[in-house]
């Protein structure tokens, strides 16, 4: 196994069946939340996963963590095939994955002090007790820029930014192999957003973290990621180095996404032309009666820069618009 193949996804699919009838459930179609995603992650790499609500970002991350078993395809972590493991073995694997969620107000237990929360997370990997455990908690708090003197406090005594630091510390505690950050800064004010982004960038460098950073905000993703993967309707439509994707987007969907980001400069904003996509993103619901979807495929346009066929995207978008109208 080479370092390039830290995490490998091979044509991963996650479908949810749609059934009709109470007793004799007939399958009339499926929601193709993830429909053929292939991806290779290097150790220590941060990949930004962008796309609109409902494009399958979250289902993909749940599938990688095996919280949702894949319908098809294979997932390898350090050469080990996760998709082939039995349920009990999968459960033991979960410690390798940690998540950071969007809302630090909802993702911390309000009845546990910081030291309880972090202590519990540390003990999943290391059997520490008493003073050694507290020392580990203190060390962890310092890593994320919190004073250890605050460890007896409850989440409500902290500000939003500090809470997100606690959530990050909790994710680091079990020494995970992969961190999935699901919109970790979207709920925060600009000034706090930049603090958390700085912290994540610093930690990633110091601890060689491998991270999937999910966001719908391309400007944040551009700042933090090494590579960007753009997801649309369960598939990757563009994948490449962050600078290349932002500066020279190849797929029409990526271009539309980039053009939708508001620029904090009134002169630029007033003069630039927007590509406004008509309508809502199409539904990932496919009925048995629908024509089969073509296979997901990416073409390499420049070294490391992959793009899906724009034709099929435009056709699907058009077909969907026709259904609505």
């Amino acid at each position, binding site marked *: 196994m080479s370092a390039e193949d830290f995490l490998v996804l091979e044509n991963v699919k996650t479908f949810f069946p749609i059934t009709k009838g109470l007793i004799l459930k007939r399958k009339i179609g499926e929601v193709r939340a993830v429909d053929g995603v292939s991806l290779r992650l290097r150790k220590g790499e941060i990949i930004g996963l962008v796309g609109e609500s409902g494009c399958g970002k979250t289902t993909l991350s749940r599938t990688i963590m095996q919280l949702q078993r894949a319908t098809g395809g294979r997932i390898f972590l350090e050469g080990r095939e996760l998709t082939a493991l039995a349920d009990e073995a999968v459960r033991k694997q979960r410690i390798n994955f940690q998540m950071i969620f969007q809302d630090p107000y909802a993702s911390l237990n309000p009845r546990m002090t910081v030291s309880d929360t972090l202590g519990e997370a540390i003990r999943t990997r290391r059997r520490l007790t008493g003073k050694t455990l507290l020392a580990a908690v203190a060390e962890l708090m310092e890593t994320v820029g919190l004073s250890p003197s605050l460890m007896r406090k409850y989440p409500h005594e902290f500000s939003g930014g500090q809470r997100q630091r606690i959530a990050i510390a909790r994710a680091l505690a079990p020494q995970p192999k992969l961190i999935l950050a699901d919109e970790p800064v979207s709920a925060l004010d*600009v*000034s706090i957003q*930049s603090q958390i982004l700085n912290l994540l960038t610093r930690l990633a460098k110091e601890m060689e973290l491998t991270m999937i950073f999910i966001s*719908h905000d391309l400007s944040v993703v551009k700042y933090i990621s090494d590579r960007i993967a753009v997801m649309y309707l369960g598939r990757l439509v563009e994948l490449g180095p962050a*600078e290349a994707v932002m500066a020279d987007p190849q797929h029409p969907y990526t271009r539309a996404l980039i053009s*939708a980001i*508001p620029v904090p400069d*009134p002169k630029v904003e007033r003069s630039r032309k927007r590509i406004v996509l008509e309508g809502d993103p199409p539904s990932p619901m496919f009925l048995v009666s629908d024509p089969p979807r073509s296979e997901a495929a990416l073409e390499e346009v420049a070294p490391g820069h992959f793009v899906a066929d724009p034709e099929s995207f435009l056709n699907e978008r058009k077909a969907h618009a026709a259904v609505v109208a």
Partner: protein
Amino acid sequence: MPLLQVDDLTTYFHTRNGTVRAVEGVSFHVHRGETLGIVGESGSGKSVTCYSMLGLIPMPPGRIERGRALFDGKTDLLGCTPKELQRIRGKRISMIFQDPMTSLNPYLKVSTQIMEPLQLHEKVTKKEGLRRAIAALEEVGITEASRRVHFYPHEFSGGMRQRVMIAMAMITQPDLLIADEPTTALDVTVQAQILELIRMRQAANKSAVILITHDLGVVAGMCDRINVMYAGRLVETGTAEDIFERARHPYTIALKRSIPSLGQKGKPLYTIPGLPPDLSKPIPGDAFALRKGIRSGGKYANVAPPLEQVSETHWVRASDCELPSLEEVLNEC
């Protein structure tokens, strides 16, 4: 004469844990056809400012301590009785809220909800109301409006629901539209559509718009003038160019320097050290000087800093605060 002239608006909340000074002496104006942006961190008083004018503050604990909000040159909104305000709200001043799922009633059909302002304010018949509701939905780009007007809110997507909210807010052709974080809960692509729609409806109705947001990117494109608020006070006001190109107040400058999209990859982002002050304690002087990590000369430690005029359009609250350098900020974190 401006459409809305607010002078010295001050709103306090008298809670068990002390008096929270949410809005402290805020003055501004909005002209017809103009878009005013109000930006600031959470808790800076941007929403309370607008809610105070419309009588939407829970009283008690809230109380409008002083001030005047002259609407259309004759009505002082702060002196209106609840009955008088009811006649203005939804008719001459409308609001759009952040989350279209919680601000639409899930038990009522969209048709009932869109027709409500018409039935209340214009006493139209049901038939006429429905006709105008369908027309309003078409104006906000909802196809098949005559069928979809009978849908329930959950049958629409997030972006569509926000369109319904806009249709509802604009159906009485209000003079002033207040949009409180109208796109924060939406995807960027849908955000672009909704902002464009607000702009179009505004132009069609010649309404004034107050846009409350924490996203500096959104105000840059949408607003003619911008108010920056900090700790319940106005710290800077000016045209979009004044704020983005010639910002004077250290808080505005720090806010702009923290935007990730302007940051360079691999270089740490600037952040504002410390936290906004506790508003339950009186702040006699410069609120920004109280922030941990901000150096100040102490000139405004106990005296309220005055709002100084820089140019015809640009006003800045005096401050002798000095922003720490990027290195200092990073050591702090």
